[in-house]
């Protein structure tokens, strides 16, 4: 069976800067795949290219057999890919409910949207308590939950998570990662980009290591966790 997402030989440029230099990877249905690497390695660039905010100069991104490099950003969301961006990017003046509604922007089934919202509130009960509060007034952890809830509102087949642990306390990071596993258990595939490599590798099925725009290592997460190179460069052990 073909992979859910198949990235082939992807080249992305920022002006003259060759940010992604021909990376290839794939995600199978039901997997958590993590992309680890240092700052500036190209992790966020990869996610932005999948979501259609950046266009590659070369290469293809096949999702359910459709080449996303030729599809508009709104269409990519309705095909079933949703991204939780780095730094949460909550719509601060909009209430929690309105933020979630924006996550369901491409949907037109009020009943289904209501059900999705109930499911988000089941995963993040704290959001329900703050339903009419402007998103900007939430704490950092709550904002991360809102960002993830918003990402789930489109009922994605594939969820792209960009640095979900950034700026959160260790306890909150544990909670967020537990919820990521729950989301995955309910059938959503996940592409997780993380600086916190130890945490990411502990929940992922497979992993890719990105260095200055190239994939330098790949394999089952448990194996990479034991790889001496990964240990030295990303796990600080």
């Amino acid at each position, binding site marked *: 069976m073909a992979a859910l997402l198949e990235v082939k030989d992807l080249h992305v440029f920022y002006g003259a800067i060759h940010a992604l230099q021909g990376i290839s990877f794939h995600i199978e249905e039901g997997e958590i795949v993590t992309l680890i690497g240092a700052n500036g390695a190209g992790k966020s660039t990869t996610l932005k290219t999948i*979501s*259609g*905010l950046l266009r590659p100069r070369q290469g293809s991104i096949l999702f359910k057999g459709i080449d996303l490099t030729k599809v*508009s*950003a*709104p269409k*990519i*969301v*309705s095909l079933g890919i*949703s*991204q939780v*961006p780095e*730094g*949460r*990017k*909550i*719509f*601060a*003046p*909009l*209430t929690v409910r*309105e933020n979630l*509604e*924006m*996550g369901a*922007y*491409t949907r037109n089934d009020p009943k289904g949207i209501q059900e999705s919202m109930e499911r988000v509130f089941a995963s993040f009960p704290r959001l329900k308590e703050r339903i009419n509060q*402007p998103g*900007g007034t939430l704490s*950092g952890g709550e*904002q991360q939950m809102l960002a993830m809830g*918003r990402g789930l509102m*489109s009922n994605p087949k594939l969820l792209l998570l960009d640095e979900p642990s950034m700026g959160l306390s260790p306890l909150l990071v544990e909670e967020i990662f537990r919820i990521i596993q729950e989301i995955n258990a309910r059938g959503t595939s996940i592409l997780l980009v993380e600086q916190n490599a130890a945490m990411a590798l502990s929940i992922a099925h497979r992993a890719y290591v990105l260095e200055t725009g190239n994939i330098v290592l790949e394999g089952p997460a448990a194996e990479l966790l034991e790889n001496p190179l990964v240990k030295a460069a990303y796990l600080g052990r």
Partner: protein
Amino acid sequence: MPPPLFLKREEESVRKMQNALNRFIPFLRRGWYAVLAGLLILLWLVGRFRENPVLFAQFMVDGIRLGFVYALIALGYTMVYGIVRLINFAHGDVFMVGAFTAYYATTRYHWGFVPAMLLAMVVCAFLAVVIERVAYKPLRDAPRIAALITAIGVSFFLEYFTALDFVFTPNFINYTPLPIKFKTWDVAGVTFSNIMFIVIAVSTMLLVILWYLVYRTKLGKAMRAVAWDKPTARLMGIDVDLVITFTFAIGAALAGVGGMLYVIVYPQIRTFLGVMPGLKAFIAAVFGGIGSIPGAFIGSLLIGMIETLSQGYLSSTLRDAIVFSILIIVLLFRPTGLFGEAAKEKA
């Protein structure tokens, strides 16, 4: 009160200006100067009121009527600024086109008030969409000053192009007959006209519709999301360009109605008629806090009243100078305006 439509981020240049002000004329920053000035103005107003309450009330009534017309223009400035951070200086000229559209529809083609108003809305919305697509959209990623200068260019283009003989002609045109029969009532010496009630009723209705649109509909929520953060709005699947186009169209439709009402109140039409009301509505939007919808409305009412009061008690030549000095005072001492929020960092 609902949360402000657009939270604003304070500009670096404004902060620099304030710092300079702090350093060189610190006494001006002390609050009690503002309080003292406010008290003096209030005292003066009370004096005028006691002198002749009826006249004072008349000026207030006229000011409110003018303010509602300004509000219809100011909303377009504030919404467009909120979403693309552009002061759309061509907005006053779109307002002028609305006035001409209504004039031709009612006099030459004998349309009624409401159909003419709807036509003015459609024509202005269409014009604004064309302007946005042709002149502003290609500059979306250029430095903001480029779009601002372009807006001034579009403004001049509209004024002088429409002044050509085969368009609207450069002449003054008297708006006769008006689409509404002029009636006045005298209540305790204060004159109310049916036009005033129409201005207030139409504006209020449009404001309620606008409020509903922005805070209750999917499109309105998307507008607020786009105003806050465009890349993230795109990640949600929002078609950002379409939302921006809609914002221009809605603002222009309101200005079109404003143009029609304005020339019914002041029935002399000319292609430069949008310049002054446009600038004053812009001042009203800044006064209220640019980017804020309630701010634009309150700012417009205040500017309308300040204008009629200074015209009535001081002189009609001083009137404009006073209104423009409000712009300077607001920018110097409270650049975020009455309802503007101070810089709020995005988390």
